[in-house]
């Protein structure tokens, strides 16, 4: 009877394939699988069209096909026109984005011009699954010390909790032990933004005043209370307001302005 020569190797290979599939499927955005959908559609759709054509012929429901050629030509013209319009739209979007980016730089330059800062690269990240800390490549030799605010182009990153001669540990605002005193820009009301182990892109805004009119889309900035963060640094925008039976328990979900998964460079405010 046949017996596998290396059953251990086979099972190991199978396990590796399963692991790779698990990692791929749990991390890939379903929208990114559109190419797989396109391949599948390219194979199945022509056959399906054939069956539909046959079915219509048999049931006598084929009047539709008489104008098929005219419709095809019309469709082709419309497609071409659509492509032209799309191209124009894309160009417009690029110009718009460039304009927004230039405006942002100008605002940032004004906003942080009063601060003395040092740029740093992220060289390491916390290994724990429910903790978010970053290690940056500047330390005491570059004048960086505990308590200093760390920013990115989009907004607040966190603050330095400890520093060695050439590196520093940054507690980011989405860390489960982080609390930031914040303010809603539209109403100037104070809130507390806390991190959680659940997400690395969202904060939970609590201590919302019972009379406060917090709305989705409101911008949240630092309030300056607490002595760590300067006032007016962007934290994020309100993405959801969760109302509870008890009004004092309600909270809002704040989507951070900074995308921590794509963060590689930061700015440490020294004063």
């Amino acid at each position, binding site marked *: 009877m046949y017996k596998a020569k290396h059953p251990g190797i086979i099972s190991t290979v199978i396990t590796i394939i399963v692991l790779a599939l698990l990692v791929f499927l749990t991390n890939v955005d379903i929208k990114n699988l559109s190419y797989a959908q396109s391949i599948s559609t390219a194979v199945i759709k022509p056959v399906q069209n054939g069956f539909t054509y046959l079915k219509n012929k048999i049931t006598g429901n084929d009047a539709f096909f008489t104008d098929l050629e005219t419709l095809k030509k019309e469709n082709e013209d419309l497609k071409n026109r659509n492509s032209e319009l799309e191209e124009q739209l894309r160009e417009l979007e690029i110009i718009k984005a460039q304009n927004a980016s230039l405006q942002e730089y100008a605002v940032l330059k004004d906003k942080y011009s009063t601060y003395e800062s040092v740029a740093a690269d992220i060289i390491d990240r916390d*290994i724990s699954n429910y903790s978010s800390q970053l*290690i940056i490549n500047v330390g005491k030799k570059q004048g960086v010390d505990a308590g200093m605010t760390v920013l990115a182009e989009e907004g607040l990153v966190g603050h330095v909790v400890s520093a060695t001669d050439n590196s520093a540990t940054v507690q980011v605002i989405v860390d489960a032990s982080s609390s930031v005193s914040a303010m809603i820009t539209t109403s100037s009301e104070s809130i507390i933004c806390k991190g959680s182990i659940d997400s690395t892109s969202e904060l939970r805004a609590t201590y919302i005043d019972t009379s406060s009119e917090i709305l989705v889309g409101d911008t949240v900035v630092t309030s300056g209370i607490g002595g760590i963060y300067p006032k007016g640094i962007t934290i994020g925008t309100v993405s959801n307001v969760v109302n509870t039976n008890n009004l004092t328990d309600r909270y809002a979900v704040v989507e951070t302005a900074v995308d921590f998964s794509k963060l590689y460079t930061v700015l440490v405010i020294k004063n």
Partner: protein
Amino acid sequence: MKKILIGVITYISFLIIYFIQTNFFNWFTIAGVSPNLFIILALFLGLFTSNYFALVLSVIMGLTIDFEVGRQFVGTTAIMLTIISVLSTYLDKNFSKDSRLTIIIMVILATIVYEIGLYGLNIFIFGFETEMGTFMKILLIEVLYNTIITSILYNPMRKLGNLLESYFKERNILTRYF
């Protein structure tokens, strides 16, 4: 002398594992959760080397992690890896290591003990919010991930373990048979 050399080689291996963990497994995740190779390493040392050797190396490894990526309070990872080392010594004395299933069960147990302990310390020391649902979800995925990795690495682990065991435990008598 030989044991010191083994210690140095083990520490270098730990550093390699550290770089794999911080660079590769940062993005090679299951639903955003990475495995913890240090738990497997501490368990492996406890099972196949002497109690003292495993304990000392676990403390050194834990302190290295705490110094490199830890919080203000240095020592939480060192404490938990030491506990895993003690646990693995207990498991070694009471259970057989000859089957893949037993090793996998040990890894599951070690991962649960380590993560619950570390999360507890984080709540107690750093004021983490208690989010049991999310924590359980992360823990389950991590257990699954560690199990898969152990399953893949079982054969080389076993061979290397036997080699180490011959250095550390050659004069040992299995007292459980008396």
